[in-house]
């Protein structure tokens, strides 16, 4: 569909897909002392091991899901991705929503890559920001093609230091989800229930 938009944009969009935390082995001695950088490095290393060891399928998906549960703050990400709509939900809906999102993410990440293609992740500068957020810059080096810019948002929201967002060439996963979910909610009566049903239906597939 988008065809002739400027090449940079297209590159960015390509990047948005080509990349994920999945395919990243790690080389980052320079910043190894920083806990936020460590978290990113170890997550990438773990993910790459999983992709190398498991072909796409339930085993890989389960392993990826464990990484998401231990390294990412899925509750925080889920709440952010609902934005203001979070307040419209009750406890039961929140639990269902978070569970469906977790399954969806695990599946998306495990299906995204057929097999390991030699990518490496170079962790760069760590910038501490207000309210305890760390921005970890990194570069995904591919065997063919341009390196891809990845930015990790790391924070402690009560569950220890966890990853709360990944930006690929400037495109935030959480932000994109929020727009996506919000638009779906607006077009389906303004309540969160249809969205949760849709996500659960997809997770069951």
């Amino acid at each position: 569909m988008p065809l002739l938009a400027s090449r940079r944009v297209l590159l960015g969009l390509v990047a948005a897909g080509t990349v994920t935390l999945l395919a990243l082995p790690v080389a980052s001695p320079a910043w190894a002392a920083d806990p936020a950088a460590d978290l990113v490095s170890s997550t990438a290393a773990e993910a790459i091991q999983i992709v190398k060891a498991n072909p796409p399928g339930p085993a890989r998906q389960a392993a990826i899901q464990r990484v998401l549960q231990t390294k990412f703050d899925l509750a925080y990400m889920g709440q952010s991705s609902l934005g203001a709509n979070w307040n419209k939900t009750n406890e039961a809906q929140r639990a269902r929503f978070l569970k469906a999102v977790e399954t969806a993410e695990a599946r998306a990440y495990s299906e995204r890559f057929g097999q390991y293609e030699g990518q490496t992740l170079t962790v760069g500068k760590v910038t501490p920001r207000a309210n305890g957020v760390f921005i970890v810059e990194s570069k995904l080096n591919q065997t063919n093609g341009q390196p891809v810019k990845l930015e990790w948002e790391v924070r402690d929201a009560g569950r220890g230091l966890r990853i709360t967002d990944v930006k690929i060439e400037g495109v935030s996963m959480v932000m994109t989800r929020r727009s996506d979910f919000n638009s779906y909610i607006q077009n389906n009566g303004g309540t969160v229930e249809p969205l949760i049903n849709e996500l659960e239906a997809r997770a069951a597939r």
Partner: protein
Amino acid sequence: MDAGLALMIASLSKAVTAGVYRSAVAAAVAATVLGGCASSGDTGAAEVWDPIETPNRFVFAINRTVDMIAIRPVAVLYRDWVPEPAQKSVRNLLDNLGEPVTAINEVFQGDPSRAATTMARFFVNSTLGLAGLFDVATSFGMPRTKEDAGQTIGMWAGKGVEPENGGFYLVLPLVGPSNARDATGLMIDYAIDPFQILPIAFNWDWWWFSVPRFGLTVVDARSRTMFALDDLEKNSVDYYAALRSAYTQNRAELIRAKREKANTQSELERRDNLALVR
């Protein structure tokens, strides 16, 4: 009577001009306000300003249909059957034809030395690189940059305008996601492109130049966006909204990088602060 008519026309055109001016101001104010909202979150933009969502979704649907029937299948064949080095050369060739536009934009972005490098790249690749088929300039230490007029406008849009705010969101036929800023940029880039002007000026046979360039651009671009767009489509509940957000964020990132580099004042202040700390 003639005088009366002239007066009427004059006052009418004045009223129209005033109206246009007012609505332009209103649009600018609205854009600024919305842009301001966008910056409050830690992750950047809030919702993209999309006042013509219904027509946009209509064009989006047509684009998807055309893509499904005609463009995507060709791009898949191209990606899977054309040898990798050939694809790379096609990309180099198209990139090389785009260098003059990048250079002009770099001048207007206040970076003439970068523009000079881009032109040097263009001359090296056009000759040693066999009409741009090979990117030898990069191996000579002149890496490639790509700038467009949308970025140039965004860079100079001023402090009050967040890079996320490119005016109203717009889905262009065939081209796809855009906005007021980037669509304007697209027209400017088209108008200043020597490889659009020369074929007209010298009456080149468009069948041998413009058509192949256009066709290759479409196929090359589509094959490279395939992975990302398929992924986004599969993993979103509202593909239109997800793409709108991703496009806006990606453009904002590029413009923000430009602005931060160009903002020498803040750079100087930063150094001053460092000096004070020491």
